[in-house]
C-alpha cells in the first residue's frame, strides 16, 4: 500500500524492495501416486513498475505461480514477498494484488459498474470515492456508455475491458493477468496488446502477465521469464531472450531456430572458436555460467543467414535446396545438409523479383557476424 512505498523511498531510492520476490518456491499438487510437481524450486524477482511476462507451454507452471502470488493456492515450500513483506500464506482478500482471469470471471448477476465497484465496496471505501473511481475506471477502459449493462450482454473484448477495470479499481500493488487475451480474435488481440502496454505505462502498476504466446510476450514485456515443467529456464528482456537464448528449449519455443552441433576449438575470455560439423569455423559468445568444452550445440536464427547459389566451397554451410515456402512477406528455404538434417534460411521478399532458386539445386549458406549462439544445453 501507499505507506509501504513511502517508507521504502525514505530509506533509499534504489533499495526499494522488489514488487514481487519468490524465493525457492515449490508447489506439489495431490499426494501419493497422483503427486504432481507444479513448481520446482522457483526463485524470481519482479521489479516495481515492470511489465513482466511468464511465458511457457501449457502445464509449465506459469499459472500455478500466478495463483500462488494471488493467494488462491499456498506454496508447499518457499516464500513469496510483496514489497518485502511475506504474503505466502495470506488469504487472497488480504493481499494488495488483483487478478484478471482467463475467462474474466465477471459476476453475471451484476452490472458493469457494480462489477468494478465490488472491490472498493469490500475495502469499505466511501460511496463518493467509489462513485468517482468507477467513473475514472470506465473512462480508462473506454466503457462509460455501458456502465449499466449486465456483463453477459457484452462482447469478449468489452468483457476483457471490464475485467481490467475491475482489477485496477482498488489500485493494487501488483496486477496479475492470466492469459487474458487468449479468448479474443487475432485482430482484437493485437489491439489489446498495445492498449495493455499503454495502460501499464499510464497507471504505473506492476503487471505480471501469463501467456503461452511468444509473440504476445515479445510485444508487451519489459522482461520475460521462460518456464518449462515447473522451472524457470531464462529471465531477460525480449531481446535477450530472442537473441541469446540460454537453452535449446528457449531457442526452440521462441521464434524459429536451426540447431547445429559443433566442436570447441578454443576459448578466449567470453568468446569461443567453434568448428561446425561441416568443417567451417565460426565464433560465438559464451553465455553466463557456462564453460564450453568438447562438443556443443549452437543456434542460428533463419533471418540471420543468407542463401547463395553454390559456386565454390565458400559460405558457412553447403546443402541441397529441398523446399521453397513462399509466405508473402518472406520466403523460407529448407536446405538438406550433408548429415541429412534440415536447415532453414529466410529472406525478405522484394517487390517484383522472381524466384532465383529452384528445388534440387545445390546452395550455400552464409551466417551474419555474431549470429551464432552457444547453448548451455
Amino acid at each position, binding site marked *: 500500500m501507499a505507506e509501504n512505498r513511502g517508507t521504502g523511498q525514505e530509506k533509499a531510492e534504489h533499495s526499494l524492495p522488489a514488487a514481487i520476490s519468490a524465493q525457492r518456491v515449490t508447489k506439489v499438487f495431490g499426494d501419493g501416486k497422483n503427486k504432481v510437481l507444479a513448481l520446482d524450486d522457483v526463485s524470481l524477482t519482479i521489479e516495481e513498475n515492470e511489465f513482466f511476462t511468464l511465458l511457457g507451454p501449457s502445464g509449465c507452471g506459469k499459472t500455478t505461480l500466478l495463483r500462488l502470488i494471488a*493467494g488462491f493456492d499456498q506454496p508447499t*515450500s*518457499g516464500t513469496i514477498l510483496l514489497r518485502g513483506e*511475506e504474503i505466502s500464506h495470506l488469504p487472497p482478500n488480504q493481499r494488495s494484488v488483483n487478478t484478471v482471469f482467463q475467462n474474466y470471471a465477471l459476476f453475471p448477476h451484476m452490472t458493469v459498474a457494480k462489477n468494478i465497484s465490488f472491490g472498493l465496496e469490500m475495502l469499505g471505501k466511501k460511496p463518493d470515492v467509489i462513485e468517482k473511481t468507477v467513473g475514472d475506471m470506465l473512462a480508462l477502459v473506454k466503457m462509460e456508455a455501458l456502465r449499466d449493462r449486465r456483463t453477459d450482454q457484452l462482447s469478449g473484448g468489452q468483457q476483457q475491458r471490464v475485467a481490467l477495470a475491475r482489477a485496477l479499481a482498488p489500485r493494487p500493488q501488483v496486477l496479475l493477468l492470466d492469459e487474458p487475451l487468449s479468448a479474443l480474435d487475432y485482430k482484437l488481440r493485437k489491439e489489446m496488446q498495445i492498449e495493455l502496454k499503454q495502460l501499464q505505462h499510464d497507471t504505473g502498476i506492476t503487471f505480471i502477465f501469463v501467456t503461452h504466446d511468444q509473440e504476445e510476450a515479445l510485444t508487451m514485456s519489459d522482461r520475460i521469464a521462460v518456464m518449462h515443467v515447473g522451472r524457470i529456464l531464462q529471465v531477460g528482456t525480449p531481446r535477450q531472450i530472442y537473441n541469446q537464448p540460454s537453452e535449446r528449449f528457449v531457442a526452440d519455443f521462441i521464434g524459429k531456430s536451426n540447431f547445429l552441433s559443433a566442436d570447441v576449438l578454443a576459448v578466449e575470455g567470453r568468446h569461443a572458436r567453434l568448428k561446425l560439423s561441416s568443417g567451417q569455423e565460426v565464433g560465438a559468445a559464451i553465455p553466463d555460467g557456462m564453460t564450453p568444452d568438447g562438443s556443443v550445440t549452437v543456434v542460428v536464427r533463419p533471418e540471420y543467414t543468407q542463401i547463395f547459389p553454390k559456386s565454390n566451397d565458400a559460405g558457412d554451410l553447403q546443402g541441397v535446396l529441398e523446399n521453397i515456402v513462399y509466405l508473402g512477406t518472406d520466403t523460407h528455404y529448407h536446405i538438406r545438409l550433408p548429415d541429412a538434417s534440415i536447415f532453414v534460411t529466410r529472406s525478405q521478399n522484394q517487390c517484383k523479383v522472381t524466384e532465383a532458386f529452384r528445388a534440387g539445386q545445390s546452395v550455400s549458406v552464409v551466417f551474419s557476424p555474431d549470429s551464432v549462439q552457444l547453448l548451455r544445453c
Partner: protein
Amino acid sequence: MISPIRKRPPFSLKSQPGFGTIAGLCFVMLYAPIITLVVYSFNAGKYISMWEGFSLQWYVAAWGNEAVQDATIRSLYLAAQASVYSTILATMAALGTTRTPPFRGLTAIYAMINQPLMVPEIVTAVALLILFAMIKSLTGIQGMVYLVIAHTAFCIPFAYLPIRARLEGMDLILETAAADLYATPWKTFWRITLPLLWPGIIAGAMLAFVISLDDVVITEFVKSSGQETLPTYMLGQLRRVITPEINAISTLLLGLSMLVVCVLFFIERKFGK
C-alpha cells in the same frame, strides 16, 4: 534457505464456516431414524424402548402373517404390472418426443406427461375415487384393473425421465449410419436404437416399480375392500399398537429400495456419459 513450514491451516477458498457441521448433522438426521428402525426390527422384545437382544422373531411373525403375505403378493403383482405397462408407454412417448425438431403440441405433451408430478397426490386420489366409483356403479366391473390403471398412470413420468435422458444422449448419426448401410427403419430400431436404449429402459422400469411399490395415498383411495397393498396395510396397522413386525416389513422394503437405487446408480456410472 527454505522458510520454516508454517503450521497454520491453509486458507481454503471453498469452505464456509459452520457448513461442514450442518452437513454432518444433515446426514446424521437423514440416517439416524432409518437405522433406529432397522435395528429395532431385530429386537427380541416387544417394545421399541428396550433392547432385549437380537432376534429374527418379527421377521418370522411377518412371514407367517397371512394378511402380510396377501398384501405382499398384491403389491409385487401390482408393481410388476404397472412398471411394465408404464415403461412401454413411456418408451414410446420418449421416442416420439426426443431428438425431433419442435412440433406443434410438443409442449402440451411434456405438460401432460409431467402432470402427475405436479398435482398433489391426494387430489389425484380423490379424483380417481370419484371416477372409479362412477364406473363401478355403471358397469359393475370390479377387480385390480383400477389399481393397475391408476399406478400405470402415475408411474409414466418416472419411467419417462431416464429413458428420455438416455435417448437425448444418443447420437442420431448412429441410426443414420445404419440407414446408410441399408437397414430399414424397423431393423434400425431393433438392431441399433433399442440395444443402446436398454440401460435407460431398465432404469425407468425400476424407478416405476419402486414408485408403485411405495405408493400409499392413491392406492388407499382407489382400492376396494380386501385389496390391501403392503403400504396401505402398514398404514392401517397404525390404529393398533405398533409391533416391531411393522419394523421388520419396513426393513425389507427399505432393503428392496436400496437395492434398486444401487443398481440405478451402477447403471448410471457404467452407461452415463
